[in-house]
């Protein structure tokens, strides 16, 4: 990464047409943070691909990676908004644990009749999560109690309730198969599989697992459609900008960026297709990521959250109801913590007292690795997602390599520090 190129005073992407030659440089520079992060993720992936002798990108491991880390990324989406608005939420791990316990009790222990249906339970749990967010957000927004303290209290309270619900140290399960599909399920192949190489049959007449090549066609089609849509909308947005006389970024840069991202996406989709298709949790995550990118980049409410984090007083004097906005940010965080809790419980197949323990730190780390500012007002959804994947790939890769869990923490800590130091160093140079 050429961090040496001089950052211009411009900090946005688009510029007036008159400034022709400087566009290429400044577009690259202004997006350096974003590109740098993606490049770092790719570098880390390649590194582990080698050190794990190719295990990392094996379809089965990719599915594992997604299933193990999706809850971090889901919660990181909420945490990004919390941190951008200038707050922090330490309670997300405990809330996730509590919701997992609540869901398990409702589905397995309590005689709720038709209400113990996994879908109904999930919806109730999301609502409870929102209520928890509202209860914490109320003190933060309307009584100006520092969020660090309110959510530290929440962290203790909900871990305690979680353990109490489960009756001390025991776990509750097994959870219904339909519920477990949230984490361990794959999307059904509506089109039907395509067998390219039939699986080998051994002498005993049994097929050897993992031999042959069968493609999950629905997965491939979804992947192709997504990539085409990505390229189409990217091109369309460019066209519109050009028609109105605003240049976005040089065409060559745009093409390279689109090709690299498309190729990467297609490669991953193909890997999934050779296994059992796209995990359901990946689809959920994908939809949520798209939604939060849209909300933060395009919607007025997103804009207001950034303005509030940048200067709360100025936002208030611009007619923004900062109290209500803060409350909404915490309600959103509560709902996503609940979803995270459901995903954890579904993956484990049971509720355990330690579910989600310490995950608040992974979530917060993901957001800061992704370039958010601890002062508020700065941070991107995509950054937080990539940050979450960096944490996830490192967890997964180091586990395969057989690195001791203790040392894994040391490495993760160093990566967090390194990413933020790199960020601050870059900013100061500008």
């Amino acid at each position, binding site marked *: 990464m050429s961090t040496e190129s*001089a*950052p*211009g*005073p*411009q*900090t*946005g*992407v*688009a*510029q*007036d047409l008159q*400034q022709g030659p*400087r566009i290429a440089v400044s577009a690259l520079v202004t997006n350096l943070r974003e590109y740098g992060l993606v490049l770092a993720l790719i570098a880390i992936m390649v590194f582990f691909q080698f050190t794990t002798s190719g295990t990392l990108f094996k379809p089965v491991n990719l599915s594992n990676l997604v299933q193990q880390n999706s809850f971090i990324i889901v919660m990181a989406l909420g945490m990004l908004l919390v941190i951008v608005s200038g707050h922090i939420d330490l309670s997300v791990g405990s809330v996730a644990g509590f919701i997992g316990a609540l869901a398990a009790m409702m589905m397995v222990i309590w005689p709720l009749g038709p209400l113990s249906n996994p879908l109904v339970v999930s919806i109730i749990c999301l609502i409870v999560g929102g209520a928890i967010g509202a209860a914490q957000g109320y003190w933060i927004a309307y009584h100006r109690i520092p969020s660090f303290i309110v959510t530290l209290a929440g962290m203790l309270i909900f871990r305690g309730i979680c353990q109490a619900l489960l009756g001390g140290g025991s776990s509750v399960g097994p959870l219904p198969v339909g519920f477990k599909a949230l984490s361990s399920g794959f999307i059904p192949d509506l089109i039907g599989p395509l067998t390219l190489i039939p699986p080998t049959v051994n002498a005993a007449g049994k097929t050897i697992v993992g031999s042959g090549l069968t493609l999950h066609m629905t997965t491939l089609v979804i992947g192709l459609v997504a990539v085409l849509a990505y390229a189409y909308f990217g091109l369309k947005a460019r066209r*519109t*900008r050009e028609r*109105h006389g*605003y240049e976005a970024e040089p065409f060559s840069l745009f093409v390279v960026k689109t090709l690299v991202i498309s190729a990467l996406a297609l490669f991953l989709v193909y890997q999934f297709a050779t296994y059992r298709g796209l995990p359901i949790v990946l689809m959920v995550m994908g939809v949520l990521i798209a939604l939060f990118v849209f909300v933060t980049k*395009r*919607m*007025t*409410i997103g*804009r*207001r959250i*950034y*303005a509030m984090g*940048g*200067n709360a*007083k*100025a*936002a*208030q*004097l*611009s*007619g*923004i*109801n900062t109290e209500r906005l803060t409350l909404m940010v915490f309600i959103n965080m509560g709902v996503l913590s609940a979803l995270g809790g459901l995903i954890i419980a579904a993956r484990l197949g049971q509720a355990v007292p330690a579910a989600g323990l310490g995950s608040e730190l992974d979530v917060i780390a993901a957001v800061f690795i992704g370039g958010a*500012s601890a002062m508020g*007002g*700065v941070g991107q959804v995509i950054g937080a997602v990539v940050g979450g994947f960096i944490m996830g790939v490192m967890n997964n890769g180091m586990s395969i390599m057989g690195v001791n869990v203790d040392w894994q923490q040391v490495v993760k800590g160093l990566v967090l520090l390194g990413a933020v130091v790199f960020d601050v160093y870059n900013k100061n140079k*500008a």
Partner: protein
Amino acid sequence: MASTILEMRDITKTFPGVKALSNVKLMVEEGEIHAVVGENGAGKSTLMKVLSGVYPSGTYDGQIIYRGDECHFKGIHDSERKGIVIIHQELALVPMLSIAENIFLGNEHARYGVIDWNANETRTSALLKKVGLKEDPNTLITNIGVGKQQLVEIAKALSKEVRLLILDEPTASLSEKDSQALLDLLLEFKRQGITSILISHKLNEVNRVADKVTIIRDGRTIETLAKDDISEDRIITSMVGRSLDDRYPPREPKIGETVLEVKNWSVYHPIHAERQVIKGINLNARKGEVVGIAGLMGAGRTEFAMSLFGRSYGRRITGEVFLNGKPIDVSSVSKAVEHGIAYVTEDRKTYGLNLIDHIKHNITLANLPGVSRHGVVDDLRELSVANEYKAKTNIRSSSVYQMTGNLSGGNQQKVVLSKWLFANPEVLILDEPTRGIDVGAKYEIYTIIARLASEGKAIIVISSEMPELLGITDRIYVMNEGRIVGEMAASDASQEKIMRAIVRGEGKAS
């Protein structure tokens, strides 16, 4: 002939894409008060940062010769060791520490790390006496006013055996009385042999104390004037590169019906609940009219405006507001904005801008529905709105994607103004709209005010600069101690008349 204490030769400082200083020369003689003036963004502060080592040696071209030696300051510590002390516009004091602790912060009288408080206090008392500040050294900074804080900063500078004192806009946030005291102090220092560099926008101050004036424009030295050649007109001509025959744009007021009417407005202090800050104000503004509110610092003008604007200040607010004859509810900022009231703050950095976001996002913040549909922002419409207002208010920046935190004061003020113009108010309240901005930008702001009035908006200008009120308003209210103590047509008004109203009002209040 006095000797030269400082010579800056051909200083050139480049930031990515911008040449902030090019071949700037500055010669300061021992024992003089040397004023450096120039428009905002002309490069004055950059020059002082080069001098004090904030931009370390090697990041700029040119030479600094101080007391006969060429200096290469690597940081602010190097320059302070040689007796060059800079006092920034934004004071660098720790609010929750005492005066004594602040003065000797990082420089405590201590033995093996144990502070000798008696020695610190004794020395602080001596220093405070020198700067004429009658406060206990143990008083917390947060409990004294800005004027006194400025004196503490100067006392701190004196504690470092200062030889060359640099003051960056020292009177920007001071009242008239505190400003005078500060200037007197500078003259006293001069008698004691301390050399000062004074950066200021207030030409009357420069006129009063400076022995020489160096004028900087667009990163270049224009000229250095000796005492006898200093005149406001000459300085203004050099600063803006053209002569400003008229400091206020001409306008022909077309005044229509009453738009805003405030009746019996009372407000109590947000913390000291028994203290009434605003005492039954009645005020109105008409279509196309520019109404001024004059008064001394602390008269309650800002408190009045902010309490009117969505109860942003105070408690137990009572009174009625009428817009075009109908009573309106202004109990929240969004309601006030909806009814067409806008308030441009006196403190743009704290209350006006998101400094870590760019111009475009700041301009549309108060009227996001104006660039969005169903809560989704239309990027292109937002971009063209931002460019439109950038052109309208003449914001000087490379594009609307420049961070507002990197703009000069005048341009920041134009961004705040643009934000409220885009909200399309009927009544625009401007609180000290030209504070801390230079002559050229001031004229531009006045032009915008005149244009808005001619478009039929009602404009209320709060200002501490009486000539400004006399120059741009049609009617002036005089406020003192939370009351309106006078009302006069601008054509009948004069500085003396306004002052007389204040003094008479004081008599009445007590």
